[in-house]
């Protein structure tokens, strides 16, 4: 019996030390991580909308009307106090293969995507993680000879595909000859997760803010994005 208690005691002691230690570390690091994440998100919003760094974002949270849950989006103004609306931005959360993929989406006043930026994902390295890959056009020989082309401004190819698309352009395809978002080879789940979350978010955004000009590019099938008929 005494031996049994000793076993339980040792295990309980180690678990206790571990949990107290972890909670202390979490308490010490949580705030710093959050601050960094928020700064990163703000930067991503500016990049996704391709607007000036002094653009001013105002967050709006809708009532639980749309799809049964509140929806949060940002309106971008040219500067603080200005009435000049540049566009909208929202954060899409997609359930990927092994993580929640967080995508910041920039949308112009006509309801067309200006850019997307994936800020957080923990998909399989080498497969799903390629949603963030920048494909180099340089050969290893050019790099070794020192005459590689500078590619620092090149955007990740998967995310670049979202640019200039409306709600109905957002579907995943598996062949380069089809129109749409070309899936990452071997990572259909990750590709679908990003595309679906962006598509759902865009439909919700449009149903809330409406769009300026009707060009037919935003009629989602299934009527998820009924326009309100009002200008933004």
């Amino acid at each position, binding site marked *: 019996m005494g031996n049994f208690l*000793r*076993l339980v005691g*040792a*295990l309980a002691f*180690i*678990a206790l030390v*571990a949990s107290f*230690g*972890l909670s202390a*570390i*979490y308490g*010490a*690091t*949580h705030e*710093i*991580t959050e601050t*960094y994440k928020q700064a*990163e998100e703000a930067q991503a919003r500016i990049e996704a909308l391709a607007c000036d760094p002094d653009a001013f974002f105002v967050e709006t949270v809708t009532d639980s009307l749309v799809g049964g849950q509140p929806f949060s989006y940002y309106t971008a103004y040219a500067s603080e106090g200005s009435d000049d609306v540049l566009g909208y931005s929202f954060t899409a959360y997609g359930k990927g293969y*092994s993580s929640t993929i967080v995508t910041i989406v920039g949308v112009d006043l006509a309801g067309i995507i200006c850019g997307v930026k994936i800020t957080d*994902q*923990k*998909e*399989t*390295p*080498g*497969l799903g*993680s390629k949603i963030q890959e920048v494909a*180099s*056009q*340089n*050969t*290893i*020989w*050019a*790099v070794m000879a020192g005459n*590689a082309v500078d590619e620092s401004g090149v955007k990740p190819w998967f995310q670049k595909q979202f640019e200039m698309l409306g709600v109905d352009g957002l579907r995943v395809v598996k062949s380069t000859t089809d129109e749409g978002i070309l899936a990452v*080879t*071997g990572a259909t789940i990750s590709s679908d997760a990003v595309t679906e979350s962006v598509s759902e978010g865009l439909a919700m955004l449009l149903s809330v803010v409406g769009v300026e000009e009707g060009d037919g590019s935003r009629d989602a099938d299934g009527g998820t994005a009924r326009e309100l008929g009002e200008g933004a």
Partner: protein
Amino acid sequence: MRPLAELVKGIYKENPVFRLALGLCPALAVSTSVENALGMGAAATFVLVGSNITVSFIRKFVPTKVRIPCYIVVIASFVTTVELVMGAYLPELAKSLGIFLPLIVVNCIILGRAEAFASKNGVGRSILDAVGMGVGFTFAITLIGAIRELLGDGKLMGYMVFGPQYQPVLLMILAPGAFITIGLLMGYFNILDERMKKKTEAKGGKG
């Protein structure tokens, strides 16, 4: 065994992937390219050293019957600590290594070395063992990664090798390519080993 031998054994003689067949899960999942392999190797080595040190420290207090759950708690806490601290103070590093950390939990090299080595040896030797095993693991997945990236993507370190006309062998990037590569490499190292054995036997017989 001499301290130096503890360090070196993990690289070839007891290579975790090719010899002990440990850590095959991350070796399969992450060896799609050299860059990923190096990232995974670095992250795994770091956690391995940390867990070996801790397990070696507590080895005398832990009752034998509950040692495995204790080691699991220690390793899981260590991985979580690394994840939290890195996210707060080294966000850039967390971005490049962060995706490998959850995969380390399924890396049985860590638990394997805790059980087979750190629980029976002192801290100094445990560190040497961890570094050796870490380097051996990194070497193994980098080799697999180089082969898979070269054939499956026509690239090395993300740069094209054969030019844009190369038609990649997609199979090599997907899971079967990993099995095929690991299998062939293991076979090759076994042949190499046998030849070396024969040579030393022949020498020993005559001498």
